[in-house]
């Protein structure tokens, strides 16, 4: 198997898992934050999970665009380049 193909497969899998994980983490975060446990410490953990999940979702959504931008700019400078990756959104 071609190594580039292998890596692309891996990328696809990681992206799908990341989306799922984002949803899971988001749900877990809200569940912890909204749970009827009167402890601000646990609520803060839930808050942190929500924030991280949203950051992750932001990066996963913007990632392909950023890599496309990098390769676009360097091809504009005049390099022979790997071609921009196809968006890997599920």
């Amino acid at each position: 198997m071609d190594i580039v193909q292998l890596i692309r497969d891996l990328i696809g899998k990681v992206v799908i898992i990341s989306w799922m994980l984002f949803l899971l983490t988001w749900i877990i975060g809200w569940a912890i934050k909204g749970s009827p446990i009167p402890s601000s410490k646990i609520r803060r953990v839930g808050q942190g999970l929500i924030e991280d999940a949203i950051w992750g979702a932001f990066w996963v959504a913007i990632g392909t665009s950023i890599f496309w931008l990098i390769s676009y700019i360097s091809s504009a400078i005049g390099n022979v380049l790997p071609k921009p990756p196809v968006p890997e959104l599920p």
Partner: protein
Amino acid sequence: MHLLLTSFYLSILTFYLGVFIYALPIPITGLKRWGPRLINDAFFIAILSTTIDSIIGFADYLRHTLGGNWTYYIHAVRGLIMYRTTLITVLSILKDYILKVVPGVSRLLSIGINILTASLYALLLMYFLALLVYYNIGVLSSLGITLMAIPFRIARSAGAFLLSFTLVLYLALPLYPNFVSILSVPLSHSFLDVTVIYGNIVTDLGYRVLEGYVGLEVENKYIGPAKLAPNGHMLLIVNKKYLDKPSTLYFDASSHRFYTNLTNIILSNLCLNRSTLNMCRIDVAVKGLLYYRKGMTIHMTPQPQFLEILEIESNSISFKVKLQSNGSLYLSIVNQYKINLISINNTINIDDLAKYRAYGWIWYNVPGNTYVIPLTPGIYTIHLKFEVSSLEGLEPSTDHLYPINIYELQPETVGDIMDILTYTSYVEVISSLLYLSLLMSTSYGLSKLLGSTTRLRLIP
């Protein structure tokens, strides 16, 4: 190319792994810190792998600016290796012969052979490193980037070192001959010990001299002739110590040396521009000279009271002079000139110069004659018509000239057998090791820079 593609996709994988870690529902700080770290790495590697061509191009440009040339370097080193090998072979054969006659001398020879062998090994090292880097720059650098691109920084520092090693050697290895020349040139010829004497040249009668040669006489040593730069700027590079000794500057034309206003004078007292080191500006007035063009000099004794150059064409010149006492007009021309006509005040026409010929001369390598025409006091308008048979060889050839460029200055001790010995053997052994260690430490520093993201952080 395939490696670069791999590294690009690896960087994308790294990025998504970073995102994955961000999204993990496990609230452990040590684990979560890998998220932004991996994203940072991914951007850095992606930029590096897409711009490596430009980086190599920039290295090319930089090396070109510094004066390195791969083809020249490889040829020079290969030639030196051939030369050494032949020398060692010949000396070994010689040693075997001498061994049978005088055993003591052959031992001396074998010491020499050992030094030569060491320098041969040093050269071979430089040569194979050059081949490795020059022909495999693309493969090596992209391999380095691919190693850097592996997620979780597994082979990051190894890849960074490989990349920086290749880049540094690709840039700096052809500069090795320059480095050797710095080491082997004797100290008195460093840039610190020369002075550039520069300035304008005029005749005593107020006309700018636009071409010609100058020379400096110090302690019975003549430094010259140095050709004037275009527009008649004098540019003379001399040893600094000469500035503090009585010296005489001559205008050197058609085998005559004309005195100038600088006769038996200590130049360092006269430099006009004292602000800059190693530069000395002196404006020069040449005595007696009326006119100089390629290989043709016109002068007069005694100095005329007044000169007006009326017209200068490619094959004629006319001027007006005022003479106070009996004097002579000197016309010194190289053999390529043929004078067709000299007319004085439109009354006296001389078309046959042969009877005025005073003496012949050879100006470095250019032969010529001087004609002397006696004149009584009065004002003369002199018109000269001539033709030039060929434009080549009107002035001394470059081998006779004093170099204007500092690199062409020869060390005075050339021919000294010890210098040649040290140059050919010791300097090469030492300088190659010195240079390689210099490059190694440079590439180590560069790899430190590339291998750590603490200085190249995009996301906090």
